[in-house]
């Protein structure tokens, strides 16, 4: 058994491909925890960032700068009475949030955080991903129907129509990216998520810059469609609170409602991951083909540590800016501990970067490499998550018919055109 466990450590493929179920399970656990933590962090960041967009402070009471607010919310939601409306279809009502959650989390099995940092490398990865993520709509439709109430029903109908229409434009944009993977000597493309990133690596260009502006247009189409796909502002028709009170989850409360939220945020991260994988070079660091000397590798491998270091510094500044009153003593200590924790992580990461540099092919080097991959991937995804918040703070909501018009009359023709032009350009170039 230890041999079975240890044997994978030297491998350069995913546990799924290596047939190592133990490590696959470990990865699944890590991803599940990581995504849950990311959702919690996202929750806090969204509330704080949105608050600062809107000249207010956001959560400030639970923990220093409201850092513990998501935990307090989660606790509250879990303790809440579990209400199932009398007229609702009980089983379906019960199962709907689970469908959404399952669909959102299953997607993560194929998301490549690095060349071997994925649960599995499916050869139809992107297809699997699109397929499973669109199952999320089932949870919403079922929830709206099972609630046996008008607002959820309208929300569910809007949501399903919206997701189905945007899936088309989204899929065509994805196809044009997949087409780009075949621009090599052999002329063979790939649907594998890892393969797509590796194709960008080999061609020496992120697909967003490939055949400029074709890749860029496809990327923009995808990033519009993915907002609609995840029901976020300005396309949050399904849960437009000023029109449909809360849309499909009007009748939900407590834990079940929080599962919907979890699924929504997990789906946001998932679609952002697709965008990063397809157009932004996945786990690759910026300028990987321009600045490829080992010295540059080292400099870029310092970034994770430096990021945590600057976060720690911000937290320390926060400690000094806390009011000196004794009421804030605990909060000050809490924030200081948090800052120290961030600082410790920063030091750890810097140490790994330095140690991993000196000894090639050692475990530390491999670890260092892995951290780099995951760091750049997560950073790119984080930019998307920030954009999601930014959109929400800036724009009014589209009306349903306008949304459909954009989907069918604007995005679909453009993405179709981009696909055709990409194919033609690809043939001419090769």
């Amino acid at each position: 058994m230890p041999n079975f466990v240890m044997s994978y450590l030297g491998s350069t493929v995913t546990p799924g491909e290596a047939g190592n179920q133990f490590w696959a399970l470990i990865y699944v656990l890590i991803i599940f925890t990581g995504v849950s933590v990311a959702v919690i962090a996202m929750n806090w960041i969204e509330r704080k960032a949105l608050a600062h967009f809107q000249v207010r402070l956001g959560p400030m009471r639970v923990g220093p700068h409201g850092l513990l607010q998501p935990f307090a919310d989660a606790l509250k939601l879990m303790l809440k009475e579990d209400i199932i409306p009398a007229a609702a279809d009980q089983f379906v009502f019960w199962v709907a949030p689970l469908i959404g959650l399952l669909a959102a989390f299953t997607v993560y099995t194929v998301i490549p955080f690095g060349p071997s940092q994925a649960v599995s490398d499916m050869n139809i990865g992107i297809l699997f991903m699109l397929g499973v993520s669109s199952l999320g709509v089932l949870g919403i439709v079922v929830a709206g129907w099972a609630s046996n109430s008008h607002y959820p029903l309208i929300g569910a109908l809007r949501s399903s129509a919206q997701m189905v229409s945007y899936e088309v434009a989204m899929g065509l944009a994805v196809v044009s990216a997949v087409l780009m993977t075949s621009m090599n000597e052999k002329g063979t493309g790939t649907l594998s998520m890892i393969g797509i990133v590796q194709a960008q690596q080999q061609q020496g260009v992120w697909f967003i810059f490939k055949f400029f502006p074709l890749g860029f247009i496809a990327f923009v189409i995808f990033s519009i469609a993915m907002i609609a796909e995840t029901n976020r502002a300005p396309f949050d028709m399904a849960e437009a609170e000023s029109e449909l009170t809360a849309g499909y989850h009007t009748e939900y409360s407590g834990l079940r409602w929080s599962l919907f939220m979890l699924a929504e945020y997990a789906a946001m991260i998932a679609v952002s991951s697709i965008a990063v994988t397809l157009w932004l070079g996945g786990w690759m660091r910026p300028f990987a083909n321009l600045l490829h000397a080992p010295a540059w590798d080292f400099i870029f491998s310092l970034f994770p540590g430096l990021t945590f270091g600057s976060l720690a510094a911000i937290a320390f500044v926060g400690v000094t800016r806390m009011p000196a009153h004794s009421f804030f003593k605990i909060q000050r200590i809490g924030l200081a501990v948090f800052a120290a924790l961030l600082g410790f992580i920063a030091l750890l990461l810097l140490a790994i970067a330095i140690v991993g540099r000196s000894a090639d092919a050692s475990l530390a080097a491999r670890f260092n490499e892995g951290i780099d991959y995951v760091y750049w991937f997560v950073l790119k995804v984080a930019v998307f998550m920030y954009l999601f918040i930014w959109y929400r703070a800036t724009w009014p909501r589209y009306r349903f018919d306008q949304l459909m018009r954009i989907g069918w009359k604007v995005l679909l023709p453009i993405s179709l055109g981009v696909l055709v032009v990409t194919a033609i350009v690809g043939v001419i170039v090769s």
Partner: protein
Amino acid sequence: MSPRTNDSANLDLETREKPYLDSNELIINMGPQHPATHGVLRVILKLDGEKVLGTECVIGYLHRGVEKIAENRTYTMFNPYVDRMDYVAAVSNGLGYCEAVEKLMNVEAPARAKYIRVILTELNRIASHQLWLGTHALDIGAMTPLFYTFRDREEILKIFEKYCGARLTTHAFRIGGCQYETYAGFEKDVKNFLSFVAPKIDEYETLLTTNRIWLERTKNVGVISAADAIALGVTGPVLRASGVKWDLRKAQPYAAYSEFDFEIPIGTNGDTYDRYLVRMAEIRQSLRIIEQAVNGIPEGPIMAKVPKVIKPPVGEIYHSIEAPKGELGYFIVSDGSTQPYRLRVRPPSFVNLQALDVMVRGLLVADVVAVIGTLDIVLGEVDR
């Protein structure tokens, strides 16, 4: 001219036509507890999918019987009650009431009192429009303007608080003038506010006026023609956005409005976007009026000679002012006693709300929310 009529009761399901695809119509109850109905408005919507086939407003959830209360209170005692009708523009309500009683008693407020009244009323108009803008934008899905407008409205409320001690239900005026002389630094505060808020108005406009989604959501939504608007008795910015250049401050000037130079902004299409532009322009005009008033405020008494017990002679009077929402009228019948024999309030929101059905028919559910927002109703005034 045969205006569209408000047959709001036609929600009966029996008479529905059967088109080539038979589908059931959906009756949806929007409110009274709904985030976008601005209080306790209940709208029963008949929908075909998302298309609105008809509406019926059910109001009265906030009915407090203000008109009946008036008959059992003296003129002085009733004065604070009017603040509770349109609670976001309480000063305007008070102005209308005080002027109506003054007219009935045939007294006139002194010039200084009139100027103070104009300054406070226009400040209140700005506050009301700011609150409208914030909530209207929130209804359409833009969260951020709400917080900006509330931040800036706070400055107005601070001035009110310093002047009369209350922020919302100000009870700022008395029959015959104003109870309070302005505090030391009032003029400075108002001038500071003017220079503070002017760039903020531009800030709201940068967020919305040319925002593509805002344009799509508001252009050609809730259109009401000038003829329809007049026939339905719609007043205020809603009427002006349809192209009728009519403002009581100009048409039948009251207080000191005839002494100021300002314009009546009007729209052309009568849609939600025009109403938005008209109100934004009105805020700027109000700033102009305040600036002129605060620079030219005369010295002198702030109360006219009125008896301690208000006892208007037998008679009746109708007096109306241009409240932020439209024509706010008071019809008072006096029997010579200390209490009004009959006091009727002509609430602008109530009459404007009647146009909802005409405006939303054939639009989508999302537009109903936009149109309710653009009508700028306050349920305290609709129900009284």
